[in-house]
């Protein structure tokens, strides 16, 4: 397999799907002539022209709504938010319109649309630009929510999202765009199904469920724990709604312990949902309380030393695993 960066994998997914289906187009701020604020759409304007790579003014509610209307009429828009922080001004479009109209019309209207862009903290961009948005969107019936951790998952899941007949919230990682990883060779098409988790690392002693940016923190922590004799099994849900708990439940039944590690705030959200489901579905197998390592419950500060405290660290992951393994 090839090595591709996360952003290149996303670009390939869009390129392939736009080549395959005339109804697919990309719309957002700076996606065309500027080549993408994070260069995810680099080269697509040259490939497809202004009709299908549409630069917009700064008007998230407007172009999110235009995308939804176009999807209702049969197109398959990809709407790029320069970052998910800016999706809040388009919240009503996503919640009240995209997520509702299929049922409100008794199934007469479909909204095949992907909203995508970087999510979560970058580096020192402070309180308004560091939101980890999964909790807001996973609460809404009528949406799929995907947050891929690797280039391969990013490509395979974005292709599935574009082909879905439903509105998809696609949360990329600003700090993941440069990450390299294996992606199937050119000409080998891989569609990763929405709603399937993945076993990342097999292990016997403790299950760690994680996704997004902390995925890499967890893998590094697992290596260190392994050296200390604690063998962690890592599961990545990849899709946060619908949530596939099958693998994690099986894993917990084997390891009898679990730590959930996520970037978003601790109050509610997919992290709390996973813990709730695991305690019910694997209650008799648990040898320790379920633990979570989360982003701290504060607005993101600017100073680097403080930001480092807020995001999940290897140290916090290692401590949590040791606590549930009664090894500390």
């Amino acid at each position, binding site marked *: 397999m090839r090595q591709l960066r996360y952003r290149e994998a996303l670009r390939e997914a869009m390129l392939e799907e736009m080549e395959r289906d005339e109804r697919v187009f990309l719309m957002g701020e700076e996606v065309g002539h500027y080549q993408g604020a994070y260069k995810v759409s680099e080269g697509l304007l040259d490939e497809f022209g202004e*009709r299908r790579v549409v630069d917009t003014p700064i008007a998230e509610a407007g172009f999110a709504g*235009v995308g939804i209307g176009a999807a209702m009429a049969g*197109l398959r828009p990809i709407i790029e938010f320069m970052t998910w922080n800016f999706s809040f001004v388009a919240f009503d479009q996503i919640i009240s319109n995209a997520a509702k109209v299929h049922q409100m019309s*008794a199934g007469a*209207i479909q909204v095949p649309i992907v909203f995508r862009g970087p999510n979560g903290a970058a580096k020192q961009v402070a309180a308004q630009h560091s939101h980890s948005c999964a909790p807001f969107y996973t609460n809404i019936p009528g949406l799929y929510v995907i947050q891929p951790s690797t280039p391969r998952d990013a490509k395979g899941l974005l292709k599935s999202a574009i082909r879905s007949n439903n509105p998809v919230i696609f949360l990329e990682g600003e700090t993941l765009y440069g990450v390299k990883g294996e992606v199937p060779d050119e000409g080998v098409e891989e569609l990763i199904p929405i709603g399937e988790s993945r076993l990342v690392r097999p292990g016997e002693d403790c299950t760690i469920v994680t996704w997004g940016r902390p995925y890499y923190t967890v893998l590094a922590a697992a290596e260190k724990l392994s050296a200390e004799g604690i063998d962690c099994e890592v599961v990545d849900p990849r899709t946060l709604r619908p949530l596939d708990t099958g693998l994690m439940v099986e894993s917990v039944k084997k390891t009898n312990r679990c730590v959930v590690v996520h970037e978003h705030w601790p109050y509610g959200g997919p992290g709390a949902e996973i813990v709730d489901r695991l305690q019910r579905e694997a209650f008799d197998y648990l040898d320790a309380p379920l633990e979570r390592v989360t982003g701290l419950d504060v607005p993101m500060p600017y100073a680097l030393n403080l930001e480092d405290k807020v995001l999940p660290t290897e140290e916090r992951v290692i401590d949590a695993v040791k606590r549930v393994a009664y090894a500390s």
Partner: protein
Amino acid sequence: MMVMRRFEEEAARNYAKGKIGGFLHLYIGQEAIAVAATEVLTEGDYIFQTYRDHGIALARGMSAKAGMAELFGKDTGCSRGFGGSMHFFDVERGFLGGWAIVGGHLALAAGTAFKSKYAGEDSVTVCFFGDGSINIGGFHEAMSLAGLWKLPVVFICENNQYAMGTPLERTSPLKDLSIKAKGYGMVGDRFDGHDVEVVQARIGEAVDRARSGGGPTFIEVLTYRFRGHSMSDPAKYRTTTELEQRKQQDPITVVREKLIGLGVQESALDDIDLEVDEEIDAAVQFAEESEPAREDLMMSTVMAPEGES
């Protein structure tokens, strides 16, 4: 217009009886606008409306039965009991909904118009909203994009003088809202909405312009609702004198007098009234007797089925 009027009068009665729940916003007094607009549209065109949506749906050809059954929350309703009064849909006829967040559907209308342009089709989108929508961000962003991209859409502000209970002079520094069009690079128009022929001609101009590639239009139609904002609103913010004055220009009376002036027999018009009464009675009976909304659809319609589409 008579179908709309009798439909809503009957809906109000059944609301009072507890047969209809939720919110019920009546279009009584504004009917000429919906009739006129649908007259100039063709198959393949798209229509969006606010929650005050019964009139336009009926004008576009939805049966009174499908509408009334929806109000009663029945499976035979136009949204199978999932939408209610505020969310009528009739996709086959291009009626893409009643929408209940003020200003939220204008961008959707720009979106269907975007699709028309993208696909090289000559279809047009008509989007209705009230004077209460003009201050919210959704209005501004949809108008901005439609103007920028010269989309084939006609925005029709049905200015019924009140945003719920607040009169226009307390929500807008402008008396003439149509001048806003200029700021969005589109044509503006403004006229009275009680004479169906006038409304039809003027909306027709805008629709023709959109269809022929001339871009969007923002229209302000001056109208008046004879009932409160919704069934729970006794409309104490206006005087009975004002209401009675406005009723002198009831669009139905206006057209009736015009027809009689043209030599139509009154008895012929009375016959139409009787036919409409029967149609609405049948709709109520149909709604009463229909099966309730289906529980199994509740879970299965949250997401659209996957697979080729």
